[in-house]
């Protein structure tokens, strides 16, 4: 049975790209969210095995979303997606509960490696 993934990014462009990478690798993308608030709600409903989370989103950023998700479910596995030059934000995300990070532009191999690390 394949792992389920929730993809959170406010750009449909990025969501599509990530979704393609993950689906081709055999993951089951069960949901997408455009804002941190949506991410928190969808996590609660879907309980995916993995979440990819963009840091910069309107209506609750990725970091707050990770914090809330992890507070509700300490076993949550969140992979942060960050653009270059956002180290302090990534660190904050990790402290808020993110398990790993990838940097845009994505290389599919790196994304999948990070996903493997997160899923354990």
């Amino acid at each position, binding site marked *: 049975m394949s792992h389920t993934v929730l993809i959170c990014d406010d750009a*449909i462009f*990025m969501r599509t790209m990530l979704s393609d990478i993950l689906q081709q690798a055999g993951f089951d993308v069960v949901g997408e969210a455009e804002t941190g608030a949506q991410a928190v709600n969808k996590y609660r409903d879907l309980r995916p095995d993995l979440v990819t989370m963009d840091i910069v989103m309107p*209506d*609750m950023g990725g970091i707050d979303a990770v914090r809330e998700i992890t507070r509700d479910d300490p076993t949550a596995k969140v992979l942060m997606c960050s653009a270059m030059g956002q180290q302090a934000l990534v*660190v904050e995300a990790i402290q808020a509960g993110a398990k*790993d990070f990838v940097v845009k532009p994505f290389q599919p191999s790196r994304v999948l490696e990070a996903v493997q690390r997160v899923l354990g």
Partner: protein
Amino acid sequence: MDSARYRELFLTEARDHLVSINQSLIALEQSPPSTVRGGESVNELFRAVHTVKGMSAVMGYDSVAALSHAMESLLARVRAGEQPLEPAHLGLLFDAADALESAIETSSVQADAGPASALDVTSLVDRLQGRSGSASSATPLSTLPTVRRRPPPGSGGVVVSVSLEPGTILPGARAQLVVARARTLGAVLGASPDEVALLADDFDGQLALRVATEADDATIARTIQGAGSVATVAIARDPDRSDACENAPDAASDPSSTRLADLPPGADRSLLADASERFEAAWGNEVLKAPLQRYVRIDLRRLDHLMSLVGELMIVRGSLAQRASAHADPMLDDVVTEASRLVGALQDGVLGARMVPVWQVFDRFPRVVRDAARTLGKDVEFVVEGREIELDRSLLEQVADPLVHLLRNAVDHGIEPPAARVASGKPPTGRLTLSASRERSAVVIRVADDGRGVDRDRVLRTAQAQGVVDAEREALDDDEILRVISRAGFSTADRVTDLSGRGVGIDAVLSRIRALGGTVELRTGPGTGTSFSLRLPVTLAVIPALMARVGDEAYALPLTHVTETLQLTRGLVRTVRGRDVIVIRGEVLPLLHLRDVVGCARGDAATSHVVLLRVADRTAGLVVDQLLGREEIVVKPFDAVRGAATCFNGATIQGDGSAALILEVSSLL
């Protein structure tokens, strides 16, 4: 990677973000970052630029990525309060936004813009960075690590020395993950360098942790490796406490080591208080921009396809009704009626799906007006009303260019320079209003300025000189002025301004609006201002029409322009100055023959009918052979053959499958 598909997605999103960027920049001109509104604008601006950066990096559009990255760095510092946003910075950001727009448009056409534009971007990038200090922090590790950290102070536990791979991206963040992984093994008693130093630019990818754990070496190594990008893990266990105390360097003399005992994961924020507070301040004050609504993003082509299908369905419905009526079967009639009702409802639904609020196009305009005002030295307050009014999507797109022209025209010719306004007792700031409103089955979009008004005398004299208006006339009313100035080639401007062109504009506006089935109205007063009102059908695709026959062909007359129909009797027709007219209730109206219009020989039918058509204030009668009844017709665009009559702006397929041309009434009258 399917480039074509991603390219379209990229373009759509990037363009949306550019609108947002321009809006935020304009807002920042009025409200500095220290205000609530200004602060929100900086955040929105940052987010939009950040997203464009991410997407363009993925697509490999390097100049777009570099430019947005430089803008982002500047904005990050402004947002963190490290740097004020001076007018010079704002001007630079406006320039950068324009460059970003060209870079986006050209990059998506070719695989990144060529060397020439890359140069332009570089100079902008330099200027942006010049204003924002150093370039991005957290450069990846470049060389093989050679220095080993001293072990962290304190005692007990296992000393785990980790070096990250060369070329690790965001090494500080990766090291953070190492620490997090170490915590799963046991309490982290100390770390060197400490968590703040990890984020510094000179972090070399070496760190040492003191972890209280019972796990064996292999488990420790494997757990640490799980953080990713880890090159080596070395484990040392203190032989005994006394040695460790003697050999450990003095904590006070090593500023980069932490004195803190372990912190459980949740309490880390205190270590990075500065950074956390800054970001809390930045993100915590975000205000919801619009209420959460359920929107779905659809590929426009799917919608167009649905529209087409509905259009065909409506034509089929017509055929069905025709055939059913020939059968005189009441059961069949019931079913057909029900089907017709459902098709009608489906049509309404699909048409509704194509409706978009006008702000989707109107939001581009503040930037247009601002730039025009700056270039021309005018002071303009731009007001937009009725942003939520909805219009068919393609209608709205088509009306964008005419509106830009009218807006620029108003700034150029309508609104006077501040000094001139003050001299005539007006406030120095001119007011330009763009409004949208609903009137029954039409949407009215109005561009109104409070400027000098059209120079009626000048228009009259120029028109007389061109032979367009009788020499005896002394004045023209508003409708006549519009007709005159919209003639191709008419212009009273004695200098060509870059923006409005030489008399090319208004006639293009009129023909575009007419082609969409709409009308234009001008109202102007000396010294009080000018307004152009564009009246458009709410939807383009289906209109009620009166079908009429001439010869063997059927034609469609849009019902909005039909006021009356009569049977034509000889007594009604007169001739005045060689032209046919019709007298209705004492009023004399020009009479046209549709046969003449379409090039048919005039028949001598025993009876024919007159359709009274009205556009704005002009009414005329149109003689047709036979009236075929009222119908809802699906408008299909068509490209007229060169040289063909220009009085048709569309076609429709009738119930029997034959085509009927749709008359563009305003061109007749």
